[in-house]
């Protein structure tokens, strides 16, 4: 797993995708920070953290699109799948590599908090909660993106498919409001990523939400492993 983690992390910077992702992430978070906190002279950063949800919908697919699709296209999956490494080790290596790049982006938001702290008092616990929430949301989105990437050989399809899947997970909450059957609406509402993420931005640290994102990431990573496993049998 370590070898894959190292190679993938390097590859993000060798192929420019890492730079593109981070540039876009810094730009987007900077704009959001400017529009919410700086413009109103407030130390409340929930506006930026809330807005980043939508930014992730677009940026995470860029991070995950080539993870597994490109291996298949270049036939390098033959090297990985015939090496003495378990499938879960392979998937986790790639997942953590994406998490490292993503986390570099998330850490940038801490810089904004430090900047604000010169002008007023910052509620550091809230900021920390937000960072944890953003990390968890990103982890589950990356897992979704990897699953989509494992299903195709084409990076572009992987990116668009990943975006569509994440959009669906975002919209699931709004759709649930339209469903007249209470029972189904409750289930869909419970699965809404935005409804689970928003409490973090209000400074509410609910452990059930943490558990939700951890399990979501776990499930999608598990499905990715299953997709790779199934490919051997088909």
């Amino acid at each position: 797993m370590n070898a894959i983690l190292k190679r993938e992390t390097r590859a993000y910077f060798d192929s420019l995708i890492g730079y593109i992702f981070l540039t876009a992430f810094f730009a987007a978070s900077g704009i959001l920070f400017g529009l919410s906190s700086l413009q109103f002279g407030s130390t409340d950063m929930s506006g930026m953290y809330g807005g980043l949800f939508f930014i992730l919908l677009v940026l995470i697919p860029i991070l995950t699109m080539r993870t597994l699709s490109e291996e298949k296209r270049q036939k390098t999956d033959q090297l990985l799948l015939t090496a003495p490494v378990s499938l879960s080790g392979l998937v986790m290596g790639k997942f953590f590599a994406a998490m490292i790049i993503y986390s570099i982006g998330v850490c940038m938001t801490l810089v904004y908090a430090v900047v604000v702290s010169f002008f007023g008092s910052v509620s550091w616990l809230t900021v920390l909660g937000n960072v944890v929430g953003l990390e968890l949301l990103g982890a589950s989105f990356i897992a979704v993106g990897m699953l989509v990437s494992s299903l195709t050989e084409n990076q572009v399809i992987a990116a668009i498919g990943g975006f569509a899947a994440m959009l669906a997970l975002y919209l699931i909450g709004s759709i649930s409001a339209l469903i007249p059957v209470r029972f189904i609406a409750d289930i869909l509402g419970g699965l809404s990523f935005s409804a689970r993420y928003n409490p973090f931005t209000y400074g509410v640290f609910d452990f059930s939400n943490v558990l939700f994102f951890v399990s979501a990431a776990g499930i999608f990573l598990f499905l990715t492993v299953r997709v790779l496993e199934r490919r051997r049998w088909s």
Partner: protein
Amino acid sequence: MIEVKNLVKTYGDKHAVAGISFKANDGEILGFLGPNGAGKSTTMNILTGYLSSTSGEAYINGHDILEDPIAAKKEIGYLPEFPPLYMDMTVKEYLCFVYELRGCKLPRNTHLKEICDLVKIDNVYERRIANLSKGYKQRVGLAQALVGNPNVLILDEPTVGLDPKQIIEIRTLIKKLGKNHTVILSSHILSEVQAVCDRIVVINQGKIVADDTADNLSRELTADHKLIARIDGPKDEVIKLVQTIPGVVSVVADMQRERGVWEYNIEAVEGTDIRRELNRRLMSRNWYIMGLRSSELSLEDIFLKLTMGESVTEFLSDKADDLEEHYGEAEQ
């Protein structure tokens, strides 16, 4: 050691591999021979754990590739049909990655250096793989399979894309490796298999049609019914005379080797030995046999014969019948 028992792989209702069993012993180079699409690569992909078999078992040094894949994969170095290279890495980075991926314990720099010297890529060690020629890419692929010094090497068409000099180098290398590794290599080039392998498994349409040493294969299938004879005598009359020998299918004058001495390719019906009769008849006309040898079947012939199955024999005996009829009429 590699042991394969009744391996089957089906895609839908198509049998890519239909019940293959064979064994490759330690220190043996086993050649997989077959036309394109015969199931060579599929078999290799199953042996290395890239694909799963539909049924059957494969053991690598006693480890079942399905039950105990990690242990089995540790024993294998695999060069697939398309070398699995990361184009954005340098050769050095790539080999270091493979070294870590395989959890290799040997001293890294000296081990990688040895491999590079062995496959002669030390002069491109720092270059990006994307910029290498096909021959070098192939050799980097081979280097990758050697990392960690695995006991078993599985090489899928290892000399594809190389120039003749490189082909000879790689073959020599494989022969050298074969002394202390178990090697399976596939090819559809017959001379290659003949040159390198101790034993040959011929595969066609997912089935093994022959499994023997190269010499045995050619001995078993060769026979005294195909002769090359140098005969001192007038060409056209010699041909006429030889054709009257019972069992002769065809006589073709090949070329004049010496003054008045022609070389003839004589083919008789399989299982008949016409040499004595040939001698007797030529002597009676005072013509002389200046040289006589049986034309051994080349692997090409063997291959055609094995893959065409009975149809070759049928084809030949039909031809014999036609000729008999023809001469029967002529005599009347």
